[in-house]
């Protein structure tokens, strides 16, 4: 039987890991909520952002935390342009085309990364992110505590932006009824591109928070894709709140599963959640609310 201290530490570690899952899933759910497509290029774009963070640190010595606003902004511009000039243009208004384009994009990005960056594992050594923070009986690495706080702050800021700003209102309007939004004069294509851009900006932020404690290789983004999909399904496709709750729930499930069932079998908890949600509440925890 595991002691309370270990279980408590497991929950804290799960929350810390969950914060990153939230950030990755928020982007995915926003893109789904507005464009009604699964962005298959999500993992590849996360990997690309992680390489950007790596090169900024390795070549220019820019701290990943200081780079966060810049990387997020550049990711937004990249995502916006990607939608405007590639995905939107070749989709011809069909959702299934978008699906295929993002899948193709993912394959192209992965292979270009392999060609230009090689398959080597790249890490950055951020000294001030080393060390641990004691939270009761738990020891959490400083990098993960920073990631947790920053992810929550970013989610809150994004939530406020969606709730209060004119663009946020337009995004919600397009997500709910795109034809109606078009009729009242909203530039739907622009909103699509902005939503895609925001989704990719979330990945840029996640990359900055991940790199001090993780690594990047051309396949590393995919490690987070299944988790992000499960989080979105759990929380409800397109639900912002759902991604938030879902990310933390998945983080804790994964962590406690690892503690009680072993590191390999513990992953079964995530799959079990995925199946149970599809069986019992296919719309997800917050799927009905918009």
């Amino acid at each position: 039987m595991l002691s309370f201290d270990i279980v408590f530490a497991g929950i804290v570690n799960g929350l810390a890991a969950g914060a990153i899952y939230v950030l990755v899933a928020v982007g995915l759910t926003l893109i789904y909520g507005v464009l009604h497509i699964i962005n298959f290029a999500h993992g590849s774009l996360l990997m690309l952002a992680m390489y950007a963070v790596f090169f900024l640190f390795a070549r220019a010595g820019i701290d990943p935390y200081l780079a966060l606003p810049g990387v997020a902004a550049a990711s937004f511009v990249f995502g916006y342009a990607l939608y405007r000039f590639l995905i939107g243009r070749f989709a011809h208004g069909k959702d299934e085309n978008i699906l295929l384009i993002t899948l193709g994009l993912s394959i192209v990005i992965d292979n270009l990364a392999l060609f230009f960056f090689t398959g080597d594992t790249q890490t950055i050594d951020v000294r001030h992110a080393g060390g641990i923070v004691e939270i009761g009986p738990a020891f959490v690495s400083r990098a993960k505590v920073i990631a947790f706080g920053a992810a929550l702050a970013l989610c809150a800021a994004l939530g406020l932006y969606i709730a209060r700003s004119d663009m946020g209102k337009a995004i919600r309007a397009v997500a709910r009824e795109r034809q109606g939004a078009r009729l009242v004069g909203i530039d739907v294509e622009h909103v699509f591109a902005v939503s895609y851009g925001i989704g990719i900006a979330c990945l840029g932020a996640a990359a900055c928070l991940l790199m001090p404690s993780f690594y990047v290789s051309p396949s590393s983004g995919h490690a987070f894709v299944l988790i992000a999909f499960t989080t979105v399904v759990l929380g409800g496709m397109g639900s912002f709140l759902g991604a938030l709750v879902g990310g933390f729930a998945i983080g804790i499930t994964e962590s406690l599963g690892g503690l009680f069932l072993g590191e390999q079998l513990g992953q079964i908890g995530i799959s079990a959640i995925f199946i149970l949600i599809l069986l019992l509440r296919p719309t997800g925890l917050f799927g009905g609310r918009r």
Partner: protein
Amino acid sequence: MSRKTSIGAPSRRQILAAGAALAGTLSTPGIGGAQARPVRIGLLHPVTGFVAYSGAQSRLGAQLAIDEVNAAGGIRSMGGARLEPVLGDTQAKVEVGVAEVEKMNEAGVAAIVGCFQSAIVLATTQTAAKYGIPYAVDVGASDLITTRGLKNVFRLKPGFGKCVDEAIKALDGINGGAGRVAKSAVIVHESSEFGTGTAKLLADRLPGINIEVKEVIKHDNPTRNFDNVALRIRSLRPDMLMMSNYQNEYVLLARTLHQQRVDLAGMFSVLGGGFNYKFAQDLPDVAEHMMDYNHWFAPTNPKAQAMKKRVEGMNTLFTFEVYLAYNAVKLIADGLERAGSADKERLTAALAASTWSDHFMPYGPTRFVDGQNLGGEAAALQIQKGDIEVVYPTQFASAKAVFPKPKFG
């Protein structure tokens, strides 16, 4: 010599001399005349997928060997036949590896060199055996590879059985020299044939040197997070951590334990996938004093040093994948030279009887029994001040092991 012969019509003597020269040229293998038919060698590696770096390094080593053989005039006993690579990518998947062997057979390869992951080596050697294609295993540690009675399989380096036995001896020597501070260990390994087989052997052998195994922890590839493993290790309070993982997880595990300040007397991997110069340079604090029992070139061999310089000159690290694949191709080239033919049966027989010594591994001449070279030996290494030092066997050691490693402040 008359002026007439130098500017006018050729003299009889000149015609005879030219004819003799031509005959001489044609009789010299590989120079002028009809080129001997090239010999196709299949290079099978995971150049995409989660071990793509190791696959690319292996391919590089193999191609360097092919270039070298060709530049030196090809296979002389076959009229200077050039080696021609047929490239294959396993994508780190068993079924893809098997399909690539089928394609290589269709392409008419004389031999295959590959393919890094034990699980895929097991399947692809089996497929190659169906067609009698000689298969030189460059990297692939499982003992099963050479114990299934396949006549077409040859492995220059030792398997994990011997590596674990030698690693245990090295650890016992290092621990004994430090007053036996290590009395317990936790084993963390990846879940495929390589990690599982190595961990099983370690769990079996460690009690024999008075190190109790407190727990064996298995993880998948890829693993996103080792926080819980660090937590578990902290709660078990072992003296040693024994590791057997591929590159990404090796680096992530080491880094997590360092970030969480988990105190251990030592971290010792067997065939650690991420233990290399890059790890030592990129994460010097994490890597410092980590130990690994792994394949290593003979440090005093001038060929090894020249090759190291050449590879580093290409802005690439001289990792074990490079020199193991290089030597595996050179082994095949030597077999072809002895067989004087690309016939699969003759080549297999030549490899089985091989006494090749022109390599730069600390192995001596090759002697294959059931496809396993018996002279193969690895070495215990430790990262010290950002460099990799040999700490065992003592006759090759370049430094003394730092053990136990200093505790976190």
